[in-house]
């Protein structure tokens, strides 16, 4: 439609939600003042807003796929 650069496309394509880092665990700390890790967010850097966006996208993508599978 338009040849103008649209940053939204790159932002969307760079959200690699299929490969979210759910297996990389943070380095263990053993000190008394160590941060307690949340069980749900284990392995994910939830402080990173992009990760949180990715998680939300994953939920929406799942719903989309359910709709697609239901109609096809």
């Amino acid at each position: 439609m338009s040849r103008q650069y649209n940053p939204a496309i790159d932002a969307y394509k760079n959200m690699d939600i299929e490969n979210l880092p759910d297996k990389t665990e943070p380095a263990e700390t053993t000190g008394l003042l160590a941060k307690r890790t949340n069980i749900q967010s284990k392995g994910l850097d939830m402080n990173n807003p992009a990760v949180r966006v990715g998680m939300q996208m994953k939920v929406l993508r799942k719903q989309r796929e359910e709709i697609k599978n239901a109609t096809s």
Partner: protein
Amino acid sequence: MLQVEETLFNAPIPGESLVAELGARPWQSPAKITTVDEAVDYYMERMSSEKFMEQVVEVMESGVPVAVIANTIQLASVMDGVHSVDVGMLVVPIIMEMMMLLGDSAGIEYNLGDEEFDESISESKIAKAVSTYRKKMQEDDVVVPTKVEEKEEEPEEVKITGLMARRK
């Protein structure tokens, strides 16, 4: 004829729009939403309304790419001072995904806007457009004006008889 008198020196000075007082524009004041989570909640609430759903599905169906609509939505919020540009860029993928979810649930075909721009128009598209145009013209009974060849009258030759006249 009625003429409105305009004062000559009451026009804006070139560049006047660039010298507004700092903070006068909405995007120059602190954003209302500062985190991505708040922005996501804000957009989800807006996009869940029936009116928005109908409008966005209509626009997507007309062929406007999803990326263009999403970018426009977030830019409008930036201009209104709702959130900053960086929060907007982080939220854009969610807006796009949500819009695609709406499109899928409505059962429409849409395009993401990531395909390469094709400058050439295929022959079939041109033929289709021409046939649609002809059909519409026939329906409306419009007489298409045909080109009338006009013959230009040749100027009569005037005999010049002076001494300085050009020889043929």
